[in-house]
């Protein structure tokens, strides 16, 4: 400022269908840091933004779920590369949002980058871990293979604005689903900036769609939306009534629901395991006749 240069404020926007629109409603709300200092105005999405995001996610589903697991892994790794390049920005945003020291925020961003790499490695391995040939008592070859659930709504955790967000979004798309993400209501800036990273990471538009706004307002139409196949309620963990309502609404078209876990017990830096990967996978099992078994026990 000493050289008299005007500061350039960033307009935070949504990330829907590979584009950066403002909210259809034209609304914004103020986001502050942990001490209450104003940081930015961000779009306050409406249910129509949520609807548009679902349309974009559905459109992207065929291509993304049909891409080879190897290709999906490469793209997820690319996200890690891009995130690494913008490390400084994310360290600042995470520090401001979560009230962390710079060094603590830096280790959070490092963990978030590593999380992308972790899930990038899993894309072409999860199939072998949860699928495979099943032993059956009959002349059949019996194979199980995991397939993505479809369009998944993800309520990102309210507290952990980047590491928590990556930890819930990456497994959903690593498995081949497309995601509509509702960012943390009070700490949405790292999520909206992550949209910019995803847009430059070869990730097809619509695979991840990021909305900022009031969680309850956005979650309700998404939970009852007939074209959403699954919902992860992590972001509703601190509001048991809301979580219950959403679960009831989601039951209507038999959405797969991932129930919220207690906030206190969640350590996002811990080894994530595979349970988030398998939460939105459907097992397809194929019985293939092998013909009559000969005396040797095999017809081949």
């Amino acid at each position, binding site marked *: 400022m000493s050289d008299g240069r005007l500061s350039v404020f960033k307009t935070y926007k949504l990330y829907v269908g590979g584009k950066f629109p403002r909210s259809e409603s034209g609304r914004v709300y103020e986001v502050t840091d942990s001490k209450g200092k104003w940081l930015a105005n961000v779009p306050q999405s409406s249910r129509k933004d949520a609807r548009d995001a679902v349309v974009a996610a*559905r459109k992207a589903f065929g291509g993304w779920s049909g891409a080879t697991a190897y290709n999906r892994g490469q793209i997820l790794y690319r996200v890690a590369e891009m995130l690494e390049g913008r490390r400084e920005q994310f360290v600042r945003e995470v520090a401001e949002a979560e009230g962390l020291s710079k060094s603590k925020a830096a280790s959070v961003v490092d963990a978030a980058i590593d999380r992308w790499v972790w899930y990038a490695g899993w894309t072409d391995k999860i199939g072998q871990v949860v699928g495979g040939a099943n032993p059956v008592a009959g002349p059949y070859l019996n194979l199980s293979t995991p397939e993505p659930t479809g369009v998944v709504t993800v309520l990102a955790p309210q507290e952990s604005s980047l590491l928590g967000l990556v930890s819930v979004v990456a497994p959903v798309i690593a498995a081949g689903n497309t995601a509509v993400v509702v960012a943390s209501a009070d700490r949405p800036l790292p999520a909206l900036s992550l949209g910019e990273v995803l847009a430059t990471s070869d990730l097809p538009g619509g695979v991840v769609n990021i909305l900022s706004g009031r969680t309850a307002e956005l979650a309700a139409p998404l939970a009852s939306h007939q*074209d*959403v196949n699954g919902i992860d309620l992590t972001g509703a963990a601190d509001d048991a009534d809301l979580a219950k309502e959403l679960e009831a609404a989601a039951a209507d078209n038999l959405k797969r629901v991932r129930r919220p876990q207690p906030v206190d017990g969640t350590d996002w830096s811990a080894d994530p395991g595979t349970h988030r990967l398998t939460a939105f996978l459907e097992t397809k099992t194929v019985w293939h006749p092998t013909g009559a078994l000969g005396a040797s026990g095999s017809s081949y």
Partner: protein
Amino acid sequence: MPTTAPPPKPSAASERGGSPFADATASDSALRRFLHGLPGVDTVGLEARAASLGTRSVKTTAKAYAIDLAISMIDLTTLEGADTPGKVRALAAKAVNPDPLDRTTPRTAAVCVYPDMARTAVAALSGSGVKVASVATAFPAGRAALDVKLADVRDAVAAGADEIDMVIDRGAFLSGRYLKVYEEIVAVKAECGSARLKVIFETGELSTYDNIRRASWLGMLAGADFVKTSTGKVATNATPANTLLMLEAVRDFREQTGVQVGVKPAGGIRTTKDAIKFLVLVNETAGEDWLDNHWFRFGASSLLNDLLMQRQKLSTGRYSGPDYVTVD
């Protein structure tokens, strides 16, 4: 507001009680004089007016009314080389009962098929009140001899089609042989008998708005029951602007002759939002008299699914998805 046509000149024919435009179609040069005497179209004004009418916000009960009206105006269309009797029957079933989960959903106006499928469609729709429209006259190019085109029309009428969708000879129109186009429409009309005749101008191939206005008047003078924008087979199909222009033409034609002609935009109308924009155009331009499926139609196939999804959203409060409508 300026009307689009000059007042009819008093003529010997009108004094005898004939059509006020009998002179205009007496010869090729007279017809050309008449059509080129129509006022030029203000392109910027037309597009601005069409765009501004597209910004109306139609919500809740008005939207529910508009959706039901739009469904009842659809000519559910399948015009593919791969059409089979089975596909036509499936489409007919959908026309009669668009949303099997909600029997209050209105029927579509008609099913639109190729002439060889007309008989199948008639059999599938008998007694339902849904009409059968058949394209004819060597659709979509219209590049065939007149007797071939007329035979095509006779076939469709004999198969029981209630409506015939003909294409004009764009080559003749663009080279200025208006009387040839006129006589062809008159000849087709004569073959139609009681079937209503829709005349397709293929506005995307007419190049200018002036040509669309001329073609509309030419079609109406020749006895068209409907003027229709496009075949759906070229890059540019129905747009709000060219439909607005045709709506002005039918409005002015009724003012001067007392004869009401219908309008059918076809091709490229896929969403409920688009359809409602067209209904606003109809109401604000031609008027309420045209807000009926006897006088206004949508030539569409995928539009119906979007209307049904919006209808489900209004009745249940939940957003619907493509899993809950049929795939055609």
